[in-house]
């Protein structure tokens, strides 16, 4: 990114000065100079365009892991007020609606699993459907799928996938309100009938990780984390159903914008007023897709538990937290001394409620929400805790991943999948995948340094570091 176009507010937050005659809301970019230097100029262009959308409240923001997306940048956060003509944008949510991370904590340690790593990797790879073209073991009809779309993770628990206590640690207790299955097209539903309980491909994964270091002892105690502990992270979303909803509404909202009198700075920012028929239809479908994603991660957690129960009988896998990072959530926020109900788009950004927030489970109420920054398969991930100051800075939002530093195209030219996997194995990380191309595209070197992203997230006041996780087994989509 051309840093001459932006101005530092402090070493960890930046703004974009208005050009003469320019009219738009403020733009805030969070991150270090080093991280911003590596970002594509398109990130700046895209978030500046978001700042011109109607009904925006406060600034349009990017998180420290931002990169070039479609319409919104990935790592983009923007809140809209429906009473001010605020909009809902399909590109501001993403095609993989409610993609997120479910983190499970175990009472196992690295020492417990170390002698059984290969068997564990093979067992997880056998039982977790992963990769393009891999269907799940569950086959639903449309009526059953409608119940998934209405019920989310609660539906999954009712069907025997997991435990009722899981739901306390899933956003919105596992079920997004406002889902309207009737606004989901027949094709979207048909795509999903054989897809429940599948991981998908691309950057999706199931990882067995160990807690290398605790940074914040108090929060770690609340989160049930300790050094040497094994945790499991599952990164995936709403699969074919979400993708189909995203693609259909992207086109229909692009057409609606002109008809509804919204002047778009760029067509890819396809959107409609929240208080329009088109906007309400998308919201109903988006919440339904959110429930699909929550149910999907609940089923995958159940499948992972089954593998662990077989290989390590007597040990428990408890849900630490499940948080989505491709969403638009309806939330109350205090803006200029007034509580307002806002539609907060987080495209590749994680909700990060601070201590005391009423939506948090009692166990985490004093320390803030667990925030998960998923890194690459060879480096590591972070668990952070929400902070009070993040509310004023970014509507309680934080980074969601390491963020790509290199295009998939460039990564394919630089790495070979098989060699990469061998190299990772020599470094103690067992990767199982059906796609060598996918492995090369997801090479650790294609991502930003997760340490720098986590540090910037903390220094910018968005969330604070609690624990450092290192991968041991990765089932890659």
């Amino acid at each position: 990114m051309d840093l001459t176009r932006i101005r530092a507010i402090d070493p960890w937050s930046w703004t974009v000065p208005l050009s003469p005659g320019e009219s738009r809301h403020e733009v805030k970019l969070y991150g270090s100079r080093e991280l911003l230097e590596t970002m594509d100029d398109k990130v700046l262009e895209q978030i500046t365009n978001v700042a011109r959308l109607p009904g925006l409240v406060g600034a349009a923001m990017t998180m420290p892991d931002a990169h070039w997306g479609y319409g919104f940048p990935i790592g983009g956060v923007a809140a809209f007020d429906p009473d001010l003509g605020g909009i809902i944008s399909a590109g501001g949510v993403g095609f993989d609606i409610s993609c997120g991370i479910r983190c499970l904590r175990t009472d196992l340690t690295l020492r417990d699993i170390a002698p059984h790593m290969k068997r564990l990797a093979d067992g997880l790879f056998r039982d977790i459907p992963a990769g393009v073209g891999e269907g799940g073991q569950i086959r639903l009809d449309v009526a059953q799928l409608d119940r998934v779309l209405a019920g989310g993770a609660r539906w999954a628990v009712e069907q025997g996938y997991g435990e009722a206590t899981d739901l306390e640690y899933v956003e919105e207790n596992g079920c997004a309100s406002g889902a309207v299955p009737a606004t989901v097209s027949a094709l979207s539903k048909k795509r999903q009938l054989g897809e429940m309980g599948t991981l998908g491909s691309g950057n999706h994964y199931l990882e067995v990780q160990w807690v290398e270091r605790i940074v914040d002892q108090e929060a770690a105690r609340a989160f049930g984390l300790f050094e040497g502990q094994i945790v499991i992270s599952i990164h995936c979303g709403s699969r074919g159903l979400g993708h189909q909803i995203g693609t259909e509404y992207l086109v229909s909202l692009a057409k609606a914008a002109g008809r509804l009198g919204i002047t778009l700075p760029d067509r890819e920012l396809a959107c409609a007023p929240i208080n329009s028929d088109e906007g309400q239809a998308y919201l109903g479908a988006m919440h339904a897709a959110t429930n699909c994603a929550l149910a999907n991660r609940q089923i995958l957690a159940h499948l992972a538990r089954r593998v662990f129960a077989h290989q390590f009988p007597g040990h428990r896998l408890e849900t630490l937290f499940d948080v989505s990072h491709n969403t638009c959530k309806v939330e109350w926020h205090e803006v200029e001394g007034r509580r307002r109900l806002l539609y907060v788009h987080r495209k590749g950004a994680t909700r990060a409620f601070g201590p005391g927030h009423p939506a948090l489970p009692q166990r985490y109420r004093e320390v803030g929400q667990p925030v998960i920054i998923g890194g690459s398969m060879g480096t590591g991930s972070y668990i952070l805790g929400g902070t009070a100051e993040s509310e004023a800075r970014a509507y309680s939002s934080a980074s969601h991943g390491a963020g790509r530093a290199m295009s998939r195209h460039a990564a394919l030219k630089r790495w070979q999948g098989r060699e990469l996997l061998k190299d990772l194995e020599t470094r103690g990380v067992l990767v199982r995948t059906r796609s060598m191309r996918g492995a090369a595209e997801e090479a650790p070197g294609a991502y930003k340094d997760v340490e720098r992203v986590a540090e910037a997230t903390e220094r910018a006041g968005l969330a604070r570091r609690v624990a450092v996780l290192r991968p041991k087994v990765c089932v890659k989509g």
Partner: protein
Amino acid sequence: MPFRYFAHDADVGVVGAGATLEQAFVAGAEAAFSLITRLDEVQPRERLELDFEEADVELAFVTWINLLLGHAQENGLVLGKFELERDGDHWHGRAWGEPWSAGMERGVDVKGATLTMLSVAPVDSGWEARCVVDV
């Protein structure tokens, strides 16, 4: 090869070129599906037919790719061959492929075609259609 790619941070840009608009769209579909598997290894055992109405040629390109992706997954198929005809605003497409099998190369799942870097335009040799696909 009538298709190629361009770089995008997290996703992939696809470009289809052809003597006609329809051929450029077919090449764009080949670009998208080549991310999923090797097209020359896909046997044309089953055929899909799809129809749609779209006056805007850029949105038609996005809709064409997205319908192919949607119907392929609905039917559990991987597609390798495509045809497209246009009659005014009406588009009629055909695609051939087969169910996924164990020996097939697995690339990445293409979630959908986006409006990012979307353009459909005449070039010296005919037509070129491009956009970023989300993977």
